[in-house]
């Protein structure tokens, strides 16, 4: 199917957009204050809870939710499923913004942020640390996402009236396009690595997190769940963007895409069940409230979506498909928060609940995703328009 992408030249300042911009403005002020006053002044982080909402949600969950970019790239470019190509640019934009937000959250959260570039300095390399691996891969991946976005920008300016912009776009665009495949595959490789390493981070914390969530297979679990939910995020994002720009929803395409999800979830389910049985964790499911929590999380992320998405009637009903996708997103949020925060065992006597500032900064970063998407998709050819329409 032929398709073209076009900027959505539409009114920006809708009430929701204004609300988002206000949230971002509040967040920006709070972030400046955090850098002046220190982490203790604005967060409830402590020596017992070194990682709170910002790391567990903004960074770890955010990176998982942004996996749609690499999952779609792999599907379309490597496995040659060109029929989904209209979804690639929107997914790329979501990933770009998602990673930019996660990176921002990291800079806000780390204590010695002015040395944030240290992982790239060879004298500080540390091959044993999964977090070193994550930081390097995330830096590479953000660079790749920017490179992948170059053709989108150059497409916009290829007929620009300004000679400099026009010639730059006409040089850079084709150059990047020529080698795009190299970057796409490299992007998939580093995504595979850092999505799994985010799971590996918690292996050392075996004494800290609940046995139901701790597993030597954490890297594999984090990778597979991120891919599965990546497709769910693409679905929701595609629907929300279509509604926001008052365009038809790509119902059939999303329905076919959803057909892939049960396969990925099936693999995840096998790994999870193997982990439960091989390490004798089954009794823990019925031991206390955490067992119930595990069952709820698994129901949202796997059980219900798996069986529902096997049904054609669900996949081709956009309302139901949307609900299942949101359910999966809720499931993965719960999974990442359980692993990084909820089941975390601090030193005795410590508790954690995020401050209003932590919540508002998180809200600002989420708003940045929506506002950024709207702005960039308005100005650049991201959204797909069918050829007849043009």
């Amino acid at each position: 199917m032929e398709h073209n992408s076009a900027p959505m030249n539409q009114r920006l300042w809708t009430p929701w957009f204004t609300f988002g911009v206000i949230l971002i403005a509040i967040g920006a002020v709070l972030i400046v204050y955090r850098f002046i006053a220190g982490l203790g002044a604005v967060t409830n982080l402590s020596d017992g809870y070194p990682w709170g909402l910002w790391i567990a949600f903004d960074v770890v969950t955010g990176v998982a939710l942004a996996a749609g970019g690499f999952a779609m790239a792999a599907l379309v470019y490597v496995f040659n499923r060109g029929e989904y190509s209209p979804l690639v640019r929107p997914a790329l934009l979501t990933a770009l913004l998602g990673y930019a937000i996660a990176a921002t959250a990291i800079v806000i959260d780390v204590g010695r942020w002015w040395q944030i570039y240290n992982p790239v300095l060879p004298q500080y390399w540390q091959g044993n640390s999964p977090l070193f691996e994550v930081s390097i891969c995330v830096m590479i991946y953000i660079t790749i996402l920017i490179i992948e976005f170059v053709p989108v920008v150059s497409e916009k300016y290829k007929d620009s009236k300004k000679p400099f912009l026009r010639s730059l776009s006409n040089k850079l665009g084709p150059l990047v396009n020529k080698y795009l495949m190299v970057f796409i595959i490299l992007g998939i490789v580093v995504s595979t690595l850092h999505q799994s390493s985010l799971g590996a981070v918690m292996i050392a914390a075996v004494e800290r997190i609940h046995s139901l969530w701790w597993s030597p297979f954490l890297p594999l679990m984090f990778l597979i769940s991120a891919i599965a939910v990546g497709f769910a995020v693409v679905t929701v994002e595609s629907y929300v963007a279509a509604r926001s720009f008052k365009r038809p929803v790509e119902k059939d395409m999303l329905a076919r895409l959803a057909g892939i999800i049960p396969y990925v979830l099936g693999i995840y389910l096998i790994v999870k069940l193997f982990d439960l049985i091989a390490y004798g964790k089954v009794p823990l499911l019925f031991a206390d409230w955490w067992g119930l929590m595990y069952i709820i999380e698994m129901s949202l992320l796997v059980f219900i979506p798996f069986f529902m998405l096997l049904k054609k009637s669900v996949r081709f009903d956009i309302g139901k498909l949307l609900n299942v996708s949101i359910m999966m997103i809720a499931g993965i949020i719960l999974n990442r928060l359980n692993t990084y925060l909820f089941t975390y065992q601090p030193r005795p006597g410590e508790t954690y609940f995020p401050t209003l500032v932590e919540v508002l900064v998180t809200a600002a970063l989420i708003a940045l995703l929506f506002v950024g998407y709207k702005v960039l998709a308005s100005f650049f050819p991201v959204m797909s328009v069918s050829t007849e329409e043009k």
Partner: protein
Amino acid sequence: MSVNRRTFLKATAAGVGGGMLATQQATAARPRKALDTDISMLNDCTKCIGCRACQSRCKETHGLERSGTDPRYNMPVDLSGRTLTLIKMHKQDDFFTFVKKQCLHCGDPSCVSVCPVSAFEKLDNGVVSYNKNACIGCRYCMIACPWDAPTFEYDKALPVIQKCDFCKDARLAHGLDPACASACPAGAIKYGKRGDLIKEAHARIRENPEKYNDHVYGEHELGGTSVLVLAPKEVRFEDLGYKLYGDTPPFRLQEDIQHGIFKYFIPPVALYAVLGFIAYANRRKDNDATKKDDKKG
């Protein structure tokens, strides 16, 4: 998007080559366990009288502010960015004992393994040292430490990670004993070589079996630690905040997995090659199909 076969192959090869260059790995000269020659400290709970002189002298030596709820006194409740060691009281019915908290200077430290920027280093003399110029303040060391030793200066705009440094710069460099050991009036903190102190610890247990818990904490825990702890017979180490661990630190499994994924960079490069091949094969299939169509047309 158009990629012709030759540039595609060339570029793929370039990506693989780049990966190969990054295969260097550092090798540690020091065996990853506590050694008899390491400098060490024996903390004997049965001798501690709870005066907290060690606590105060430590703060003085490191220039750290008072801590606790009342600013007139120095009453920290736990280790923090201002408190690198402290004495805690443990009560159990009518019985009570004191216990000293600090970084144990592991033989195979978790902080060294997990730190993404090599800010922690196990020195040849056994001290686990911290380098603030490397540190980015991610606080992963605090998550991974089995004894909650590293702490963070949450109240500062330009913070560092804090933990016991064995007074290596402030005192050891001048030939002095660590501040806490020199301050203790009760002989509860003994400074020396680890091998000698382990012998001494066992001798104390042997001479007073009715007084001591029959275990030298830190002799074997997670590869052994430089700080050794003796406890009274009445209490379990777990209740003093010294969990009984096995000999192998949990991060070793993490390292094995991590090194498996990156073994000589083969798995990532192989993944790149496989994905590249699949993409190439699919593309060729497509091109052939188009050619056939062209001929027919």
